[in-house]
């Protein structure tokens, strides 16, 4: 098989292909769509989803799921916002640090229940996400933190342009690249594939499954913490219900990106491309004159289409036992 053909056979290649086609198709209808600005807007918009889809990919890879990421983002973001509001002279790095730390602690909590106690991740997710969301209400007494209450340095950072791309976009790209590298070139990443592929076998080959899972959930929490700050700062608002339903978008991005829900297969690149694709879909709708109320249904259809295609690829029509005539 030639290189271009095998590239197109992979989910990643297909996504790049379809996204590009879609992008240009919309661009033909509406030339303003084809600008660098739009590209920047798309990546900026996708950045948080790209980061969290990468994290979710690792979780799904190990046959788990983390539905607490959205609540984590919201809580960590609120922590950052509250600090910014009450102590506006706090350096930005400290505020970001606080959000990341919050996210890490929440991830750690998940890790304790999932990796140490062995409670199924979907159940822990269900329980924890409501607890974390509730904590936002408790912390903020149900009050919103508005743009005016946030220090300027807090809200300016994500959309500040460094090299033509916003900081947010840059962070998204850098973390995605790091994730791809980690999954390909670290023992940690490779062992995640093993854990998802054959969990019973991992003991026999000396993989410390518990430690790896612990790291995955904690790391996911930390990334969610970072995204918490980015979200709240970018939209300049913090309240209990932010990012509601976002966790499902991360799963959708993974599915669209070819990550198998049963674990053991898929790539981070796929998840990131899936995130970009979803984001582009959302961005394209208003340009195509479709009301934003269609967004939800369109994502739903995209997920269903992706999962149907995923399963086609893995379907076996029975073993090939008969000798094939040449």
């Amino acid at each position, binding site marked *: 098989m030639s290189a271009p053909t095998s590239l197109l056979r992979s989910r990643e290649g297909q996504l790049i292909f379809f996204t590009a086609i879609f992008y240009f198709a919309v661009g033909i209808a509406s030339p303003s769509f084809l600008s660098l600005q739009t590209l920047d807007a798309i990546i900026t918009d996708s950045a948080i989803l790209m980061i969290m889809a990468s994290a979710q990919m690792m979780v799904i890879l190990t046959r788990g799921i983390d539905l607490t990421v959205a609540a984590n983002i919201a809580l960590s973001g609120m922590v950052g916002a509250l600090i910014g509001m009450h102590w506006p002279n706090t350096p930005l790095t400290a505020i970001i640090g606080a959000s990341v730390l919050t996210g890490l602690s929440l991830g750690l909590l998940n890790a304790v229940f999932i990796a140490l106690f062995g409670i199924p991740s979907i159940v822990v997710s269900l329980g924890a996400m409501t607890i974390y969301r509730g904590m936002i209400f408790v912390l903020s007494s149900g009050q919103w933190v508005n743009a005016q209450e946030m220090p300027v340095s807090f809200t300016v950072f994500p959309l500040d342009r460094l090299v033509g791309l916003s900081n947010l976009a840059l962070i998204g790209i850098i973390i995605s690249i790091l994730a791809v590298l980690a999954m390909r070139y*670290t023992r940690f990443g490779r062992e995640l594939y*093993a854990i998802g*592929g054959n969990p019973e076998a991992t003991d026999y*080959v*000396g993989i410390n499954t518990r430690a790896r899972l612990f790291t995955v959930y904690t790391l996911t929490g930390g990334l969610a913490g970072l995204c918490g700050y980015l979200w709240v700062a970018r939209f300049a608002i913090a309240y209990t219900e932010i990012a509601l339903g976002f966790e499902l978008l991360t799963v959708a991005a993974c599915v669209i990106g070819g990550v198998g829900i049963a674990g053991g297969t898929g790539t981070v690149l796929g998840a990131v491309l899936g995130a970009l694709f979803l984001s582009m879909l959302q961005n394209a709708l208003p340009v195509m004159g479709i009301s934003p109320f269609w967004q939800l249904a369109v994502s739903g259809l995209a997920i269903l289409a992706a999962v149907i295609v995923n399963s086609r690829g893995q379907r076996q*029509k029975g*073993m090939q*036992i008969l000798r094939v005539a040449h």
Partner: protein
Amino acid sequence: MNNKPAESTEHPLLEVRNIVKEFPGVRALDGVRLRLNTGEVCALLGENGAGKSTLVKILTGVYQQTAGEILMDGRPLSLHSAQEAWSAGITAIHQETIMFGELSVAENIFMGHHLTGRFGMVDWKTMYARTEELLSRLGIEDFASNTPLKELSVAQRHLVEVAKALSHDTRILIMDEPTASLSQKEVDELFVIVRKLRDEGKAILFISHRFNDIFAISDNFVVFRDGAFAGEGVLKETSEDELVRMMAGRRVEHAHHDRSTVSEESMLQVDQLNHATEFKDISFTLRRGEILGFYGLVGSGRSELMHAIFGLTKPVSGEMHLEGDPFSPETPEDAIIRGLAYVPEDRQHCGAILNMSIRDNITLPSLTSITGGLKLNKGKENEFARRYASKLKVKAHSLQQLVGTLSGGNQQKVVIGKWLGAEPKVIILDEPTKGIDVGAKAMVHNFINELVESDLSVIIVSSELPEVMGLTDRIVVMREGLTRATLPTADTTQEDIVALAMGLK
């Protein structure tokens, strides 16, 4: 060529002394001993539950012994983790290959200890190169270091496991039932490699139930029975009967072959059955009261054919008749209603529901006939289950015991019992004694004979020549999805059958 193994040094390479292993309520190993010398293949025999797997788990660091010592080169060895066993040079190859299908051959070999280069990053280039070296050392040419494991056959996966053992300096190779799913040709190929390793000075512990293989490859033997040491010696100086006696502690009767139950009446007639990819032009007749054997290499399409007959898959063309009436099941339920039963090869995933009780398993296909309607009737169910559990002499503490906690032989009895309860006219048994020890095997064989005496007709799919030769009236040999020949068992030889199955005739 068989080189004489080097003279053993004063210490055996590995010595297991008085190992005791206790679990809550169970003494799995009761002071067993074992000695492995360099350049020798030692067979470990014993019925299921005799403690062989437990010992293997202790030697590979998965379990820790409750008491007793393990010595290597005369020095005590601590094996508190898989890592430690690995570093000590002890590797095990298991019956079900423990591997990662989505990953490449190279990664399967190096999983858990990926080679790293600069900055601690995984060094793919070196790993692939090292793997290619190992594969050529073993003379493997039909797959490469980057082949995904899922594309390999069972035999090829075993070879990857051997390569893995060689990837670091293994001194002791434990092979746990490695030949159970292999064809004769694949077994021979594997043994060539085993002999090579033995001649290089490795010590090999070979665990198997197949006497043909044991006698072909091993130098000496050790027998465990009920968790205790029951005997040892040199294979050349003993016989199969003696070994069986050591294993079972009693004589084991083999199934008789004379049969007067076969009639000319056709029970199941299959004409030109075709599947798109799995089998083609299959025609045969199962006579009433007969035991018809299906022999072939693994992957010859026998199970797939049975799946189609049972309604699990749909053939594209062809006809079947059951007792003279047209028979084309769309689902297993259709087949069961007409009086067909299928005992699948994979007992644990397809045959029994491990998390349900003996009673619930046995009554499952027959619920409607037991209760006569919608409502469950525990009393009738218990009676039903007891009838079949006792017929097969299932060993358990109550009918409520979960099937998953029974021994392999008893699990198989429950599965057979469940199908007997459905009162079939034809019963298809797919590898019914796979992975079952000698005692239970004989019991199952006796039982199959009883079945035809009670007016059932039996199809048995088997890869074990002694079983097929000893039990059946006629044998259908399959190869690559086609039937090669149908022969009366009494008039044919093992060699003929194997030759047909391998395509040499």
